[in-house]
């Protein structure tokens, strides 16, 4: 906090009021409403609702379809996070090292940041078109008939590939800026100590990038859980059917299409708890173990 402060009373209140009002109406009210309705069973025809306690939650964890989706979401998140971090790290290390064309590479590797997830999904739909999609034809070379929207695993593959494509640029930007903030003196000292480039990477660069990496880990998990909605929705063409879907998509399908407010709210609350747990891990467990320079 600042030492030199203004001492008006009404001005700061007036400055804070718009933000607080919007947050109250569009954040706390809906969040509270979700928690509340997760304890009620809504009549499907709109005639009131009855208190069921933890019933919605019990139904959720007994529902094999929900557990299957939760399981898929975990795998989906792990694979997307791992590959988009790994690919971005390799590219950032290379982009940090080259001298010629460095700026061009940077631009070419980060512009996809600005592509909306559903547009990325649109591109996937074209790439995997059943009759002439270039990636479908690529798999056909190996005698495999790739069927997005029909085969569960094929659809999951398309979603994962697209989600990685969309997320690499963000990680690349953060890794590159992390690499560039490593002081010259440290790099030169490492150069003297360790002749092999891979040795230098694992003993010096990688540990120094760890804070960026852990920050990105949380960002990527959040991305895979929530921001991939547009990709999932477009790749399944709005028809979930037997296709893979993530937990957020399930909240949308049950609540918005299935009109199951109680069940959908219980799912929202589960997701809220998940996000809070992630944030807790981020602040408490992870940050303590990392050295900052």
């Amino acid at each position, binding site marked *: 906090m600042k030492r030199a402060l203004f001492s008006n009373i009404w001005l700061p209140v007036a400055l804070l009021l718009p933000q607080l009002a919007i947050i109250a109406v569009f954040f706390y009210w*809906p969040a509270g*409403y979700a928690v509340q309705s997760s304890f009620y069973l809504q009549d499907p025809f709109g005639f009131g609702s009855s208190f069921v306690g933890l019933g919605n939650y019990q139904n959720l964890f007994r529902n094999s379809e929900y557990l299957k989706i939760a399981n898929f979401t975990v795998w989906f998140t792990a694979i997307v996070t791992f590959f988009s971090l790994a690919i971005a790290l390799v590219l950032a290390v290379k982009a940090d090292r080259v001298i010629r064309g460095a700026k061009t590479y940077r631009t070419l590797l980060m512009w996809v940041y600005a592509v909306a997830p559903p547009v990325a999904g649109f591109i996937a739909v074209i790439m995997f078109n059943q009759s002439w999609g270039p990636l479908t034809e690529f798999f056909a070379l190996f005698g495999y008939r790739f069927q997005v929207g029909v085969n569960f695993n094929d659809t999951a593959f398309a979603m994962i590939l697209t989600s990685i494509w969309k997320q690499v640029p963000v990680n690349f930007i953060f890794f590159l800026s992390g690499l560039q903030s490593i002081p010259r003196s440290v790099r030169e000292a490492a150069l003297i100590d360790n002749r092999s480039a891979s040795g230098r990477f694992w003993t010096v660069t990688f540990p120094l990038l760890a804070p960026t990496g852990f920050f990105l880990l949380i960002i990527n998990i959040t991305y895979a859980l929530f921001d991939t909605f547009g990709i999932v929705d*477009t790749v399944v063409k709005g028809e979930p059917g037997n296709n893979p879907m993530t937990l957020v998509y399930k909240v949308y399908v049950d609540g918005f299409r299935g009109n199951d407010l109680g069940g959908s709210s219980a799912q929202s609350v589960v997701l809220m708890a998940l996000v809070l747990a992630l944030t807790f891990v981020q602040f408490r467990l992870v940050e303590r173990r990392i050295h900052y320079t």
Partner: protein
Amino acid sequence: MKFSQKPLKRIRISTVMDHLVLILGALFMLVPMLMVLQLASVPDVEIIQRGPSLHIGDQLDDNFIKAMFEASGFSGENTGLSMLMNSFILGIGFAIGKIVLGMMAAYAIVYFRLRFATLAFWAIFTTLLLPLEVRILPSYEIVQSLGMLNTYQGLIVPLIASATATFFFRQFFMSVPEELVEAARIDGAGPVKFFVDILVPLSRTMIAAMFIIMFVYGWNQYLWPTMITTDEDMYTLVRGIKQIIQVFEGTNLPEYGRGNLLAMIAVIPPVLIVVFFQSWFVKGLTESDK
């Protein structure tokens, strides 16, 4: 001679490898979009017969005119132009709303002695924890009960209910030297004058960086517009994408060229902004990390 040549050669091979990896990465990013461009340039019949190819056709302008100005096709009454306009309204409205509210709140938190400052601080920053997606259905019901479906307010305001910009400006204001406030006070400047004449001009780069990030974020919103806009003349480009795909599925001769062109238009404005204002954008993004 031999001794000095050897390390030189090794360096060259590793540099070639570096470039090779980077070129592969750049192609991985670029090729899908080039394919969309190619598909937007050839007649629909050719797409159905051959799929994507290296042939650049001459239909770009025809498809552009169809996509921008002709209604019908993907969704009854809206044209690409009206979706483009809605996208700009959402992107710019969202960015300005976030920046204005965020700067005001951050100024109050950093520069004033407030009794309930800690409470306000936590009330605001808790919003960083929960994305809109986890409270999407109740948010929809509330916006519906306020009669804000299919309005720009209903589209923009609930998206603003998070503190990313506030947090960002708080960090920045804290890094502004305190001597500035003291000097301003000695010169007789009140809080409003200090804010308008000193703090806002000082924050210019930060505002620009925030604007780029928020504009792209707002422009690319999908789930919320999908729920809140059911009138086709309220559709944004990104929201319209699903319609395009669904029409592709249902027709014998889908208008692939037009659909791909609309996808291009949905991508070009945010990409141009990110590419042209790259340094501001990267600075804003990496410095706003929570």
